[in-house]
C-alpha cells in the first residue's frame, strides 16, 4: 500500500499528487485548456509523447480473488519537462493528446513549490468543484428514480 505520508524529493505527498493527477485525467481537455488560460504557462519540452496506446486493466473479478485481465483500455500518455527542470507526467483515458499534454504541464507546475498554490487555485479547485457537481447531479438523478420498498409495503 502506498503511504499517505510518502514525500517525494520535491516535497509533494503521493496522496496529494494522486488526487490532482486523477482530477486532470477525468476532466476534459477543453475544461483544462479554459482554466489554464488563467496561468502564464512556462516553456516546456516534450520528453515522451503524447502517444496513444492500450493498457491492460486487471481486477479481482473472480470468486477466488485472483487477478484477472478484464480488458484493454485506450490511454494517452505524455511526459514533459519545463524550462526550469520540473518533470510532469500524465496518463489519461481516451485519445485526447491535448488533454494529456496539458495535464502533464499542470503536474509539473504543481510540483514546483513556487507555483503550486496558484495552479491549485486556478485549475485544480475548479476541476474538483465541477467533478463534485457532476457527481451530485448524477446522484440526484438516480435518487429521483429510487423506489421505497417500505412505501410499497404500506401502499398495499
Amino acid at each position, binding site marked *: 500500500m502506498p503511504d499517505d505520508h510518502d514525500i517525494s524529493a520535491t516535497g509533494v505527498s503521493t496522496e496529494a499528487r494522486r488526487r490532482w493527477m486523477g482530477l486532470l485525467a477525468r476532466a476534459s481537455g477543453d475544461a483544462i485548456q479554459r482554466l489554464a488560460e488563467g496561468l502564464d504557462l512556462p516553456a516546456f*519540452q516534450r520528453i515522451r509523447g503524447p502517444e496513444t496506446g492500450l493498457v491492460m486493466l486487471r481486477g479481482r473479478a473472480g470468486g477466488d480473488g485472483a487477478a484477472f485481465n478484464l480488458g484493454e483500455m485506450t490511454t494517452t500518455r505524455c511526459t514533459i519537462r519545463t524550462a526550469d527542470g*520540473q*518533470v510532469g507526467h500524465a496518463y489519461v483515458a481516451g485519445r485526447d493528446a491535448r488533454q494529456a499534454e496539458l495535464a502533464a504541464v499542470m503536474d509539473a507546475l504543481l510540483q514546483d513549490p513556487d507555483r503550486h498554490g496558484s495552479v491549485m487555485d486556478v485549475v485544480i479547485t475548479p476541476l474538483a468543484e465541477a467533478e463534485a457537481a457532476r457527481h451530485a447531479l448524477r446522484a440526484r438523478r438516480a435518487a429521483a428514480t429510487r423506489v421505497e420498498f417500505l412505501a410499497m409495503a404500506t401502499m398495499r
Partner: protein
Amino acid sequence: MSCLRPGFASPVLDAQASFRAVLDAMSRPGRIVTLAAHAPAPAPLNQAAAAALLTLADAETPVWSDAGADVAEWLGFHAGCAFTPQIRQARFVLATGAAPALATINAGTEEEPQSSATLICQVEALVAGEGWRLTGPGIETEHRLRVFGLAEDFLAQWQVQRARFPRGVDVLLCAGSRIAALPRSVTIREG
C-alpha cells in the same frame, strides 16, 4: 530538478531502423554500419550506443552500466529497463569507459547459450580495411577491422572466450554513430 531528455523522435520507426542496423552488423561481423536514428542521450553515451540500447533493452533485460545516474534515468525512462549492480546478472553491459573483462560477463550456459549478455562497448574509432583479420560465419573470406580505444588484452580475452563456444559474450562496438559487431562465432587474428 531533473535533466531528463527526449528519446527517439519517432519511437517506432527509429527503433525499427536501429534494429535493422544492429541485425546487419551482427550478421556481417566487423562490417561498419551507421545508426542513423538520433536520440539526444546524456553524456557520456554516444549516439550509436544510445540508439542500440533504446532499441534492444526493455523491462526483461537488466542492464549493467558504468555511465552514471543521468544515463540510468534516461534509459530507465525511455526503455523501461532495470539496472543491476551485479554484472553477472545483466543481459546488456554498457561500457563507456574501460570495458570490463569478458570473463566477468554472463556467457550463458551450455544448455542455453542464448541467455548470455551482450557487451555494448564505446570505442574511439572504427576503421575498416586494416588491423584485425576476422573470419567466421557471415564473412566470405576475411574481413579487416581496426578498433581504437579497446583494452590491450582484448584479443587475448577473445581467444579465451572463443574456446568455450557456444558460450560467450557478443560485442557491439560503438564509435560516434557507427557500430561494428563481434558475435561470439567470429575468429579474430592480429593483422
